[in-house]
């Protein structure tokens, strides 16, 4: 079965996705779900269950061996685990990169980069090189770079895993604000249940390899979500349920 790339009513949809690597490792089995614009879906699951593989399939970096992916790959946003900033470019030039690769004229890409830099609060750091920024600031620059193309679909591959807890919470709040403002279809990968519940409209739990969706939770909290939500009883209850499913998925 081959993957297809089409535009459907859903911004991103997986239908019966399976992935077996050439060495025989089965990473994913029969994964089906979709994400529409205005939805923020987070996948939690044990390490090595195929979460990142699924994002790579969605973006076209990997080709699935089973099932069909429907997405407009021309304008997909992908934020990696690492900020993947080019060390030799200033923040301004890094943020301009995608627009540059898409052949957008210099003036226009400068404007897009400026807007994106404003949006993530990096004003004043345009001429800094990545080596002088902290992990959190680098992730902001990475987000800004992706925002320049105003992608309707945003893939996040555990982007805040390497930053400290407080910075992570800040970034969660800021990503949530971006989601509200831009209304993209977001697919987010994380190991943190709190992060998943705080940001998402829906949380999917994936089993150990081969990864399958074993549980799905709608998150009922209104946006914008305040940091205090993390201490709410309903938030704790939902996190507990996701955690219980995740423990089951591990076993």
């Amino acid at each position, binding site marked *: 079965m081959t993957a297809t790339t089409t535009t459907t009513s859903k911004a991103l949809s997986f239908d019966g996705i399976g992935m077996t690597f050439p060495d025989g490792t089965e990473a994913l089995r029969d994964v089906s779900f979709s994400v529409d614009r205005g939805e923020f879906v987070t996948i939690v699951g044990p390490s090595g269950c195929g979460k990142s593989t699924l994002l790579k399939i969605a973006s076209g*970096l990997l080709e699935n061996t089973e099932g069909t992916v429907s997405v407009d790959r021309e304008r997909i946003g992908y934020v*990696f685990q690492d900020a993947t900033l*080019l*060390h*030799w470019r200033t923040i301004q030039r890094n943020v301009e990169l995608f627009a540059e*690769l898409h052949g957008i004229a210099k003036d226009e890409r400068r404007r897009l980069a400026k807007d994106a830099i404003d949006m993530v609060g990096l004003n004043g750091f345009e001429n800094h090189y990545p080596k*002088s920024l902290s992990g959190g600031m680098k992730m902001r620059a990475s987000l800004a770079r992706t925002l320049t193309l105003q992608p309707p679909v945003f893939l996040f591959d555990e982007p805040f895993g390497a930053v400290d807890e407080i910075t992570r919470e800040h970034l969660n709040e800021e990503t949530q604000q971006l989601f509200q403002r831009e209304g993209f279809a977001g697919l987010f990968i994380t190991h943190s249940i709190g992060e998943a519940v705080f940001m998402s409209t829906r949380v999917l739990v994936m089993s150990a390899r081969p990864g399958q969706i074993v549980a799905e939770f709608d998150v009922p909290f209104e946006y914008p979500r305040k940091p205090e939500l993390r201490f709410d009883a309903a938030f704790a209850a939902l996190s507990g349920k996701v955690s219980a499913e995740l423990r089951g998925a591990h076993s």
Partner: protein
Amino acid sequence: MSLQESAETGAIESPFVGGADPSTMNAGSMRLKSRGRVAAETILPPFVMGVIFISFWYAVSYGVLDERRRFLLRPPHQVLEVGFLDWNNFSEILNGLLSSTKVAMIGLSISIMIGFFLATLMSQAKVVERAIFPFMVTLQAIPILAIVPLISFWWGTGQRSRVVVCIIISLFPIIVNTLFGLQSAERGMHDLFTLHQASRVTRLRKLMFPAALPAIFAGLRISAGLSVIGAIVGDFFFGLGDVGIGQLLRKYANNLWGEQLLAAVIMSSALGVTVFLIFGWIQNMAIGKWHDTAGGGA
């Protein structure tokens, strides 16, 4: 609080690693040590070493060698007087050095062009790398002495052959370092370019080549030094045309002119060090702003 607000109110984290501006950190640490102490710590060790070296030199010249055998190692002040302060001798050394520098720079320039071309070619396909690389290793392993007859047979005994020796000696580090550099861009960065359908040329120009610059400069610094050695070695074997420093070294040694011989050796080393420093400076100018080890060792 919006993103903009958080930036304006300063609620975002410090952008700098460890929460401090690097320029401020430098200023702070500089304040801890006085400027004089820093200068002393930088200058004193090589100065003391130099004094020890010159003392040892005098000790050997006057203590170990008797008058009859002192031509083997003339004392420093005689080398200075005859080799450097006698303008006739010194200008001869300078002219030889200029000729060798010219040969070294021509050889190095050709090595850079060939090296970049082959490394770029090899970086584009593993099969090309597998085809070319063993021959490069072989070329590197051939002792120059073994192919001297062949070089003179093909290119004569003049400047052209000296340039060929330079190329053979300096090519390998450029190829190896450039290839290593071109292959050093992280997987995630390549994924970015793949996601945005970047062409092969765009990927090379905007990702692989800039990522390779630190390694390229490391290779250039090594090869620049080797090209000077190549020019001098080439001079020894191929003496037709301009007199290079290698030919002068041979002349001084044959005539037992120890002062000029040592002066020529010192000037040859100075040339090697100067070329190394110039490439270090260029490296610092080119990549110092974003690369941590720029300006440090190769």
